């Protein structure tokens, strides 16, 4: 499975954020999307997810059925500030999600299985999502994306504000998900990216650049990434 991006361009007023972006993402990999503040990571995600109109660009998904235009239903988007319907309890939200997806998926498990995956306590499952902490909401967001099973999962800095234990849990979850999915994960934290991701893509100078890892040790690889980031003239 491949996600192809052709000639993507996006400006805000006179400020060009993305220009002539051509890139291909493949399944079975977690891509770490690194970029300096304001480099355009969220803009890139929003463009893929049709949350913003782009000035130019075409997106295609190539899978066993052929190459088709990317549909928003192919994408699961976990935003940095988790948004969940606050009038539902965690269990109700999950049940709703299982209900609406059961026609599309035969391999859905029962809800306790999913709660166990993210280690959400029994008592927390039955309180309103409004009362959930940031981390708990994040877990729920990732869970519903697992249930909906979209082909592409975009994660906009999902682990940045989580505690270390939750971060580790989430990393395991994401690694388990990468088979048959294209996961693109944006972050500011270099260690997180090199630790979790199979490929590092840097947004710099309004474009995406894959940083190959070939034969580099961890230190040299990091230096190379930082060098690529420094080349960004967006400031």
């Amino acid at each position, binding site marked *: 499975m491949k996600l192809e991006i052709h000639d993507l361009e996006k400006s805000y*007023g*006179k400020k060009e954020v993305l220009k002539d972006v051509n890139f291909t993402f493949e399944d079975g990999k977690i891509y770490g999307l690194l970029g300096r503040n304001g480099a355009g990571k969220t803009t890139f995600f929003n463009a893929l*997810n049709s*949350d913003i109109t782009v000035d130019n660009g075409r997106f295609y998904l190539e899978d066993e059925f052929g190459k088709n235009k990317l549909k*928003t*239903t192919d*994408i*699961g*988007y976990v*935003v940095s500030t988790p*948004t*969940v*319907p*606050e*009038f*539902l309890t965690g269990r*109700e939200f999950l*049940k*709703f999600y299982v*209900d*609406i997806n059961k026609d599309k998926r035969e391999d859905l498990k029962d809800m306790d299985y999913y709660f166990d995956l993210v280690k959400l306590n029994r008592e927390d499952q039955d309180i*309103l999502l*409004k009362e959930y902490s940031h981390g708990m909401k994040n877990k729920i967001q990732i869970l*519903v994306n697992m249930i*909906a099973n*979209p082909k592409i999962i975009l994660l906009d800095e999902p682990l940045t504000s989580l505690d270390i234990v939750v971060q580790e849990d989430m990393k395991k979850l994401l690694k388990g998900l990468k088979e048959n999915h294209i996961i693109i994960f944006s972050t500011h934290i270099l260690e997180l990216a090199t630790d979790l991701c199979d490929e590092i893509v840097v947004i710099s100078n309004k474009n995406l650049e894959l940083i190959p890892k070939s034969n580099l040790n961890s230190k040299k690889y990091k230096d190379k990434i930082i060098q690529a980031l420094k080349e960004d003239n967006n400031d």
Partner: protein
Amino acid sequence: MINALVKTLQIDLDYSVNSFIYILSKLPVLRDLITNDIYKSKTIKRIVGFLGILFSIARAAFLKFMYFFVILFICYKLFPNQIIQAFFHMYFLLTILGLFINNKLLNTSKKKYFSIIIFNMDATAFLRANLFWNLLTNMIMNMICIYLFVDYLLLSPTIIYSIILVLFTLGARLVGEMLNIMFFRKYHYIWYTNNSLYFPIVVGLVGACFLPYLNLMIPFKVLLGFMVLFLLLGIPAFIYILKIEDYKLIYKRLTQMTNVMDSKNEKDYLKQAMVDVKEKDKKIDSSILEKKEGYDLFNAIFFERHKEILLRSARKYSVIIVIVYGILAYMMTHYANYNQSIGEFLHVKLATFVIIMFFINRGSIITQAMFFNCDHAMLRYNFYRDPNVIVELFKKRLLTVTKVNLLPAFVIGIGNTILLLISNHSYSMISIMTSFLFIICLSVFFSVHYLVIYYLLQPFNKEMEVKRASYSFVTLCTYIISYWISGIILSSEVLSILGIVFSLFYIGLSLLLVYKVSPRTFKLY
């Protein structure tokens, strides 16, 4: 203190100027002309700043002017024989009301937040500077308005009354600020966020303003006595405020409550608080949800969790309506003149119910709850934006919203039927039945209308602010048209038939529109 005042005014001005330029840069034609370099230009900033100062002075003066004008206008229209007394009566009570609701020291704003929290200014100096500035500007405006309206127009006998009025307002404001801070220190919240305190005081004082209508008025001398009392109490209140040392702490606590730096304003927070899930709705009777799944379940839980603001309030309305109709029925059966006039009213002024149904309909608050507590989050999920899902959920919601609103409509319809039946004038069964149907139709009409405009003109952005004027405009037009129709005098048969035909046409058309257009319009901006 002067230094603090100058600094806050400077921050205030810079903030206003930059915000104004930012808004300009987002406008259709100007956005292509304005670049970020404009923020560097001192000349442009000076010009905008100067215009800003002029505008804010003009705005404050206009509001103050209107305040006096409206009071005098009401006095002139309602109590033409005792304008001066009625004016003093109203002005006194409204100032007391202002003492409760118009506090400057406890309100939160971004500008205040910048000064106290971000720039870490001396909070006590800030408090004093702001208090001083507020009192001074207010006093000057009051003096001008009192001179214009009270002395010049009313030809008040002595200047002493005007001085008392100005100083009383000053004193009352100081007492108000002091009481609000005392209350906050003791109970850790601002009293007017508690509805059980707020409504009785506001309704009581506003209601008391109209006592002259019943020939009841606070005696002039008593009024003067109270005014002098407040004027004197202003002195200890002033001292109390000057002695406040923990303003920074108070302000920090306030900002934690309202989350100032979020781009929403306080009003948006209050709106959100209004549709919050209430404690007693958190637990749902599981038997209600047992057989439901998917979107049915989702919709059912939404309405169960908002029972307090939707169903229970419709029930409360219904109880009040029953009581009103009970009183009307009693009047009709015991007094012949009421029997005739109420019967006639229902027959030829049935159109009045258009505005009544407009106010009774819960559509506006239901859509607010839908957005704040549900759609705001759900619209970020791609499946929820699928056209089929939008239309399917719309249908389910429409059914539930219509049901909620039908309860008070039925009570009104049946009430009207009973009143027409006990009227001495025998109205035809057709007339009675069509007027019943008219009320039901109105209820369905408003239910559809609110939901349709919400789906077609979804007015909120991701930050939950109302960003599209078209929604507010349509709501305002709905009110104006409803008000206008309410004045129509037409026999109930003709009106009902016209109303029913129009409603059915409108409902059909708007449903068609929602099915066709809402997948494109129902999204976050």
